[in-house]
């Protein structure tokens, strides 16, 4: 975590992540372009590059799209999440190369401006087989540009996390546009079943993982709370909370994280101020609640990040009655100090 902006806060984990990413991209490009050149010796270099970079970008977008639900299904995928934004930026860069070569090859050698040609050359919007699929790819690239350009924490903080998250949910629109771009473009002219099968599997995989993760999340939200008294509700039994970890419960539709540490109980909002990560899936490290997404830290008693950092999350008043944790259903202002409940 950082209290000031730096281009990229490099550390050994990020370097290793990006090295693996770069090696994977180079390997993917080499395999795809090499295999295509062998199978289609008459193909031009530009065409091989267009298809190679396009395939690599779409493959990477599939990986990016799967990381979120995979992490919700199993924590072992969390290391992939750590630098997911770098994957997104690389996806955009690969897409730019693909789009640039395609624009040059198919639109730059006529009398029209290449972008005018791209936008106006094909108007068969009513035909699936002749649909202007390049426009779909162009729109997807615009979305990926917006996301890549605002991927830095500078924009995250200035746009505020909810706005930033909303903006970055456009990745689903980009994914849909790219599926349409491939289905109505390459799939219409490529006879090999390999492409159709690969595309079908990728769609099925991304959607299935999202639905499985959504089902798991819905189970958590549907656990209804329970009796209430003086604005307090029964949250959970004490013994289900692991030491220095949290139990996440849903109170009136909002999730809270109930932390147990050093014989005390504190309740915080489950939403990290950085990227809205699940604080309750983190741990207490060095006396601070530590988000498992990017390591942002908060003091459990106040929900405030230790100085010089300034992030704050909401806290809740708590009490322990007959081995049950009770919590106020109304959150206090972010950063409000609350005396933790002592475990007798």
């Amino acid at each position: 975590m950082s209290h000031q902006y730096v281009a990229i806060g490099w550390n050994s984990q990020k370097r290793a992540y990006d090295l693996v990413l770069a090696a994977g991209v180079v390997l993917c490009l080499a395999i795809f372009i090499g295999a295509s050149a062998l199978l289609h010796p008459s193909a031009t270099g530009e065409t091989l590059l267009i298809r190679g970079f396009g395939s690599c970008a779409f493959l990477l977008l599939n990986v990016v799209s799967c990381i979120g639900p995979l992490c919700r299904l199993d924590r072992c995928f969390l290391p992939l999440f750590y630098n997911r934004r770098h994957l997104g930026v690389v996806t955009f860069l690969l897409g730019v190369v693909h789009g640039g070569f395609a624009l040059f090859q198919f639109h730059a050698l006529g009398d029209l401006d290449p972008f005018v040609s791209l936008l106006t050359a094909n108007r068969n919007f009513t035909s699936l087989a002749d649909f202007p699929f390049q426009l779909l790819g162009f729109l997807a690239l615009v979305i990926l540009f917006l996301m890549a350009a605002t991927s830095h924490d500078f924009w995250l903080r200035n746009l505020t996390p909810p706005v930033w998250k909303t903006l970055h949910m456009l990745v689903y629109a980009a994914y849909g546009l790219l599926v349409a771009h491939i289905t109505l473009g390459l799939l219409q002219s490529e006879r090999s079943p390999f492409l159709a099968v690969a595309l079908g599997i990728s769609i099925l995989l991304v959607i299935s993982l999202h639905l499985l993760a959504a089902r798991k999340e819905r189970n958590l939200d549907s656990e209804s709370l329970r009796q209430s008294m003086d604005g307090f509700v029964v949250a959970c039994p004490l013994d289900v909370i692991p030491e220095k970890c949290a139990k996440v419960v849903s109170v009136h539709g909002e999730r809270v994280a109930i932390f147990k540490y050093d014989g005390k109980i504190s309740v915080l909002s489950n939403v990290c101020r950085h990227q809205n990560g699940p604080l309750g899936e983190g741990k207490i490290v060095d006396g601070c609640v530590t988000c498992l997404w990017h390591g942002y830290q908060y003091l459990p008693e106040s929900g405030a990040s230790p100085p010089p950092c300034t992030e704050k999350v909401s806290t809740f008043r708590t009490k322990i009655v007959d081995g049950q944790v009770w919590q106020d259903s109304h959150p206090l202002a972010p950063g409000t100090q609350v005396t933790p409940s002592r475990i007798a």
Partner: protein
Amino acid sequence: MIQPLRKWHSRIVLFLGALLPLLFLAGLRARHRLPPEEHSSGRESFPTPRATTDSVSLAANTAASQ
């Protein structure tokens, strides 16, 4: 604060979950309806002929390739 986003996220996923398979199947169906001569067998599909639909660019491309 984040709850509305989660709801929107679920709706978007469900919408795409229904739309994309349908689109994919429609694309496959449209592909099989193409007359055989419009199908390009592997090698001929490099570069995709349908991509060059701008007649001006097409002429220029053709001229450039000759």
